[in-house]
């Protein structure tokens, strides 16, 4: 009789961020023997270094900015100021209060073995963590992603900031050159501009926030320029960065003309790459530098190894990673009734002021797919709330197919991240613009813009 192979664990989760933590907890609660390995801080990137600290600082910054401009409401705010070390303390408190940051004890209470160190596959069923060999019948790879610097001359020799390191700065720089005007770049541009930094926001694309609809980029570019003094350098290629005194001199090319600017700091926010350097070849897992390939059930080419979160390379949202983690756990626990993640109604958020939120297909997506669509935009200035809040920069945009079924939507408004969930539900369950328009929307709520946009699509 063949000898039965025994393993140390039923499941080893590599990475304790959103992609790993839910699966580890669910598997442990289902009675499986689980271990979790973390190379950095337990909790992963989102609670420790990205979403939570950035949003905590953005909340304080937006409060400060709103109060500073309160004179129009009769508020006296001329003596208003800020203390950056106290803001950092607030940010650290917010991180601590989430309970997800550095939460090693949480896993131990759930009966999950924890290991700190870089995991490296030695064989398909064995990893090495600090020379300790751990084996398991199944694995979940949730190593996330990391910021990568573009190939720019001189960048190797000059210290630069990333969206992670800028949060640890002792004070905002006097001037900042941001390379990459995606969600994170724009959030940091607004954050630093509120605290008085002169910001240059550079991107090779023709508009900022290139993955959103054109109206969003145009509007945010104007808002950042007029209200915060941000210089947007779209269609700009950064050529070189050199040290210049205590600052840096950045040379860029725009419209065929080379120019240079001296700044205190340079921040790289051009994009993240999946962290796939963990000996996946030794486990026969197929991957590319753009991420690990998985099937519909999040199984890799080695069927006993699942992957979830940013390491898949298709999406960088914490809520998507969490969904994938839950599905990977389900498929591991119930191999006979496997589930697939449904990405159709995943909201995409940018926490600026006004906030930006979108769901489903963008207009560009529809054009690429050659879909026949109808669209309607309701500008915020036709909503009663814009009068009482004295805020008019924004809109609600809804895209439907020819039958009126909502395919996608974009909201640019205060509290956009809350408003979008109505449309998320509509996209997920195939509601029509008529159904949304006939749903009561409370007077003096920003959500009235959604009703107006939907009404425009009703024939």
């Amino acid at each position, binding site marked *: 009789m063949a000898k039965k192979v025994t393993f140390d664990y039923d499941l080893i989760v590599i990475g304790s961020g959103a992609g790993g933590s839910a699966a580890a907890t669910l598997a442990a609660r289902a009675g499986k023997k689980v271990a979790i390995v973390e*190379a950095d801080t337990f909790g992963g990137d989102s609670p420790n270094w990205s979403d939570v600290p950035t949003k905590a600082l953005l909340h304080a910054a937006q409060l400060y900015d709103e109060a500073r401009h309160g004179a129009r409401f009769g508020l006296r705010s001329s003596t208003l100021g800020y203390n950056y070390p106290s803001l950092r303390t607030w940010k650290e408190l917010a991180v601590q209060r989430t309970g997800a940051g550095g939460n090693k004890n949480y896993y131990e209470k759930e009966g999950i073995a924890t290991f700190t160190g*870089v995991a*490296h596959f*030695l*064989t398909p069923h064995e990893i*090495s963590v*600090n*020379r300790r060999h751990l084996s398991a019948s199944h694995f979940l790879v949730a190593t996330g992603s990391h910021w990568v610097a573009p190939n720019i001359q001189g960048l190797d020799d000059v210290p630069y900031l990333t969206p992670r390191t800028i949060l640890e700065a002792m004070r905002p720089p006097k001037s900042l050159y941001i390379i990459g005007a995606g969600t994170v770049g724009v959030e940091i541009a607004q954050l630093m501009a509120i605290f008085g930094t002169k910001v240059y926001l550079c991107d090779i694309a023709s508009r900022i926030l290139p993955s959103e609809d054109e109206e969003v980029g145009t509007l945010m570019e104007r808002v950042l320029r007029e209200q915060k003094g941000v210089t947007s350098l779209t269609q700009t290629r950064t050529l070189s960065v050199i040290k210049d005194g205590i600052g840096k001199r950045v040379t860029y090319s725009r419209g065929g003309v080379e120019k240079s600017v001296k700044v205190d700091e340079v921040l790289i926010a051009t994009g993240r790459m999946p962290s796939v*350097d963990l*000996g996946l*070849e*030794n486990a026969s897992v197929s991957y590319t530098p753009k991420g690990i390939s998985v099937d519909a059930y999040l199984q890799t080419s080695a069927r006993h190894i699942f992957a979830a979160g940013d390491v898949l390379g298709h999406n960088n949202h914490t809520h998507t990673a969490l969904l994938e983690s839950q599905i990977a756990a389900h498929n591991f626990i119930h191999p006979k009734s496997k589930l697939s993640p449904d990405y159709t109604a995943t909201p995409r958020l940018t926490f600026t002021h006004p906030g930006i939120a979108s769901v489903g297909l963008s207009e560009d997506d529809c054009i690429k797919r050659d879909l026949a669509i109808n669209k309607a935009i309701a500008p915020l200035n036709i909503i009663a709330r814009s009068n009482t809040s004295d805020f008019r920069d924004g809109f609600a945009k809804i895209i439907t197919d020819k039958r009126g079924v909502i395919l996608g939507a974009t909201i640019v408004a205060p509290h956009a991240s809350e408003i979008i969930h109505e449309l998320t539900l509509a996209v997920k369950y195939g509601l029509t613009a008529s159904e949304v328009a006939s749903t009561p929307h409370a007077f003096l709520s920003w959500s009235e813009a959604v009703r107006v946009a939907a009404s425009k699509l009703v024939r």
Partner: protein
Amino acid sequence: MSAKAIDIIKREGRRPSESFQREKLHASIRAACLSVRSPEGVADTTATNVCNAVIIWLETKPEVTSADLRRKATETLESFHPEAAYLYKHHRLVI
């Protein structure tokens, strides 16, 4: 540039592990370069560059397999000397 103590697991653990030796890696890369008729000086420089890149990669890894080492060395060698990299990668198959 020298590496901290790193264990190399050989043949999926079927042969005893040994410590990483820069000289051994250097000699193998150099031999691959010389096999494709690189001048000795070029072979030496290439081997040094590859060893430096591999050691940087090994910084966060206390233990890797010999296959990992070969793969990383090949990947780096490809940018310096593609022919030598091909030979280095497939030397077991080349008679």
